[in-house]
């Protein structure tokens, strides 16, 4: 039986759910205080996907309008998830300290994992960082990161 080389498969058409996934990724990276990585995805994979959509015949204005709508929805979804994570973090921390790992026996039909339950990683707080006095661009990075961070995660000075 001949297995086709991967390059012989036709490229999968870009779907709006893929666009949404990439938008969600951008929003999540911003939420985690990684604006540079977010821009990398935005200008890279997301831009490529949008270009592919337009090249395939989708109207550019329609794409722009849909993108705006999707970004707004995904930003809200990520922000809500961040708030939920913040609320759950203390509870998960309490659970983690009280959880006892079950012993694993080789060959047991119903082996249980020895890995203790891990708390959900906390959403990174945006802390204004001290830097070289002349670095205005880094101040702007901080400002843009703050704009994409829900109020619950911001430093209370």
């Amino acid at each position: 039986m001949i297995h086709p080389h991967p390059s012989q498969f036709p490229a999968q058409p870009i779907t709006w759910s893929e666009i949404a996934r990439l938008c969600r990724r951008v929003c999540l990276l911003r939420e985690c205080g990684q604006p540079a990585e977010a821009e990398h995805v935005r200008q890279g994979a997301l831009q490529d996907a949008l270009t592919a959509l337009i090249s395939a015949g989708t109207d550019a204005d329609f794409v722009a309008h849909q993108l705006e709508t999707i970004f707004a929805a995904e930003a809200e979804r990520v922000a809500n998830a961040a708030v939920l994570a913040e609320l759950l973090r203390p509870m998960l921390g309490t659970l983690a300290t009280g959880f006892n790992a079950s012993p694993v026996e080789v060959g047991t039909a119903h082996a249980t994992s020895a890995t203790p339950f891990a708390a959900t990683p906390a959403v990174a707080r945006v802390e204004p960082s001290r830097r070289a006095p002349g670095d205005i661009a880094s101040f702007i990075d901080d400002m843009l990161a703050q704009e994409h961070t829900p109020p619950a995660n911001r430093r209370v000075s």
Partner: protein
Amino acid sequence: MTTATLEKPNAASTPANVQPLNATRPVASKAKTVLVGFDLGTNKSCVLAGAPGTTDIAISKVIPSAVGYVKDGIVDGIIAGNAKTLFGEEALRNMLHVRLVAPLASGVIAEADAARDLLQHVRTLVDPSGHAEIRAVVGIPANAGLQAREDIRRCAFGIFDRVLLIPEPFLAALGVRDDGRIGQPNYLDPVVNSLFIDIGGGTSDLCLVQGGFPTPEDQISIPFAGDAIDEILHQELDRTYPNNGLSRHKVREIKETYGYVGPSRKPVEVKVIMGGKAHTIELGDALANAGNVLIDRIYPSLTKLIQRAPSDSILALLQNIIVTGGGSQIRGIDAVLQKKLTDDGFEAPKVKLAGQEFKRYVAIGALKAARAARENQWQVLLG
């Protein structure tokens, strides 16, 4: 209309036969870029502009934030060039012949059409050819909400190609900062540890600036500033001199010339024209009452921010409290605030005035930010 921001697709990644996503003003066709630092104030706006890669300032203008729409029936030749819309000083000079509109109130856009016209006027000032790409850093009040930001973006759509909205007190700190003295041992860098009080027409904004971009908790915006003082002074005048007929514009002039804070000084005699006749009126108490309300509104926020600062930084912070904006011209404001802090037990506070360039510091800081901003920090406006 909702707005959003999206980085424009890199020209190299866009197929040549595909329209860019926001094709209102294609970037690739523009011969040059103009960077703009824009302090969009309630009463006065300041615009600085220059080319990237230089420190030259090609345009520097302070413009009253006023738009005048010429009334119907005005005879030809009354208005220079028979213009239909006037801006700034020209609008004020011809106020009898125009419908005067203030685009902003309390620091945010109140009349969108007039705001758009004003922004278009600014664009024409900095780029008469109309062909340059305009990148503008626009000052906004501290803690301006999402709606206020979106209103500015919406007005700027199709006029500025890229924008960055940055809180005004932080821009003031950048503007006041002497770049030639950064790092010198005796230099109190305002960006490293200071508290700025920017008193404008619509808002008084206070901001802790301590080496990083201020968080919302480091900033307080009070919707009480020059315009509110004008209102109080006008009421005092009406109470003391009924039927005085003085316009708000005239009252503002009186405030700007004679305004002060602190104990009442009498007599403060002001010559005004009422009903065509010259009168000398005494305004010592009225001016003091109006100005001291500002102190009463600002002072609690000042102490709140001081106490929010990390304890190890407060002593140095108290040496670097800077008042800027039009309100810095109120006589005695630095001394009164300093005395109040001293009387309340704060250790050796020093309140300073920003200096003679008080009208320009926000715009100076905005232009510095425009020159320093990286490509991926600029926000492209989508319709």
